[in-house]
């Protein structure tokens, strides 16, 4: 797989299509699986990790999947390219930053990624644009079934799929839905939503998972419990709560339009103006301003002739540090990067303005 070809696209998670895609960015399911006869990754020697990788790599290559998956060895991949895969949500930060033999098998549409020698020997992930947990589950269940025919998973009747961390044992499943909730943030109601979610055992995380900040007003809602509930039950619990959050966000948007349209419009226009004319731009400021612009388009406060939704979605990812450096074809330090990011934004937004798509 040629990573350079990916830089110009937004990838699956920011494709901006699918049900409720003005608010629901993407749906993702991850399954943790381990081989029965090996120690978990953190306890395995370098030699054992090589054996695990070789075994899984061979079995993955034989999977009857259409289209086929490409295997990328993460040891020989540059740190920049690893960061690039993290930004596209194709590998975890942990896998990018860890050591020893490890890799990832990717589908060409970037919906499937199988991480090898993560915290667990195998982390299967399927991602879908929009609110599409059912489709994601069907895909991942199928990949898991195919793999299971070729690999002896560590499984016990009592505890289910056995994982390195007891927080994942049982189904080994983490299902998450990424939401864009700018109006709830503006209306300062987001904390209330979080507290309600935590009460029903759902976790809320930022854009890049555990411990990351919710930049760009993106939030991931996922299940905490993996033992004692079936995959269907867990998915139902998440599926039931998402429409309520979508509803809250829509109500907050309506209220903002009714009670403070002028200042909201001003905020959105300023965000757009800054993105089009600033000469230094950090990644974080870019995310926040793009979030306002995204809201502006959804509310009809920024005409689509000026900026299209696909462009905004692309900019969210292309202005991330590794994407930007790959697009510029050079490794840039913080200051240079901020100048390059501003330059990139100016050119993209001007070109988009003069040639509406």
């Amino acid at each position, binding site marked *: 797989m040629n990573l350079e070809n990916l830089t110009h696209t937004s990838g699956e998670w920011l494709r901006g299509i699918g049900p409720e895609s003005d608010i629901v960015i993407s749906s993702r399911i991850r399954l943790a699986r*381990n081989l*029965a*006869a*090996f*120690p*978990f990754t*953190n*306890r395995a020697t370098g*030699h*054992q990790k090589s*054996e695990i990788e070789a075994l899984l790599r061979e079995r993955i290559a034989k999977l009857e999947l259409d289209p086929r998956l490409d295997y990328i060895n993460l040891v020989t991949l540059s740190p920049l390219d690893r960061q690039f895969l993290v930004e596209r949500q194709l590998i975890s930060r942990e896998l990018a930053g860890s050591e020893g033999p490890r890799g990832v098998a990717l589908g060409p549409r970037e919906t499937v990624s199988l991480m090898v020698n993560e*915290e667990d020997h195998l982390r299967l992930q399927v991602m879908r644009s929009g609110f599409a947990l059912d489709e994601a589950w069907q895909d991942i*269940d199928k990949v*898991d*079934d195919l793999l*299971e*025919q070729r690999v*002896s*998973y*560590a*499984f*016990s*009747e*009592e*505890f*289910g*799929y*056995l*994982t*390195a*961390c*007891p*927080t994942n*044992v*049982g*189904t080994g*499943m983490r299902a998450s839905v990424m939401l864009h909730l700018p109006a709830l943030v503006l209306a300062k109601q987001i904390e209330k939503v979080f507290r309600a979610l*935590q009460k029903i055992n759902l*976790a*809320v*995380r*930022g854009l890049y998972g*555990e*411990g990351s900040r919710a930049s760009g007003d993106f939030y991931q809602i996922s299940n*905490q*419990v*993996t*033992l*004692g*509930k*079936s*995959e*269907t*039950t867990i998915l139902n619990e998440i599926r039931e709560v998402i429409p309520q959050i979508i509803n809250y966000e829509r109500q907050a948007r309506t209220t903002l339009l009714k009670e403070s349209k002028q200042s909201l419009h001003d905020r959105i226009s300023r965000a757009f103006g800054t993105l089009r004319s600033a000469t230094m731009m950090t990644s974080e400021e870019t995310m926040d301003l793009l979030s306002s612009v995204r809201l502006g388009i959804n509310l009809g406060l920024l005409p689509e002739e000026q900026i299209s939704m696909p462009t905004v979605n692309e900019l969210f990812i292309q202005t991330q540090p590794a994407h930007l450096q790959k697009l510029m074809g050079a490794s840039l330090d913080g200051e240079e990067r901020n100048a390059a990011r501003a330059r990139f934004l100016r050119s993209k937004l001007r070109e988009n303005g003069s040639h509406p798509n």
Partner: protein
Amino acid sequence: MKCHYCSNPATVHLTDLVKKQKKELHLCQACAEQQQLIQHNELNLTTIVQTLLGQHVGHLPDELARLTCPQCGIKFMEFRAEGRLGCPHDYEVFKGELQKLLERIHRAGRHVGKVPRRRPVEPAEVAELVALRKQLRESVEAEAYEQAARLRDRIRQKESHG
């Protein structure tokens, strides 16, 4: 006072109420940040496991402290400190303690949901595979390649039947 995770002096002191009992955790700044116990109030699963483990087990009885998995060699103490198990067999070896922990994390103790259609490998077979792999490693290290080749074939055969 020393840090709960390393031997540096503890400068961060956390207290929590569990079942009306006060539990204290003392950490150095670096470990506290690393464990994301300060600054972030977001839920962090590693921290939860470690805190639960600390609270739950309290002082380790000698017997528990000495408990070691025969397959991967991890001691219960190490699991307690790191929050990660060493191999699938640990679920059997540390079963008693894990059941209590799982009950607290998941409010459940038994798996419900997908079961591999393929029969899971019997514990005895796993133990044999683990032993065969160990022998294989040793014979490669001793440059006994003929023996290594034989062992490799046996492992392959076992795996494809398993």
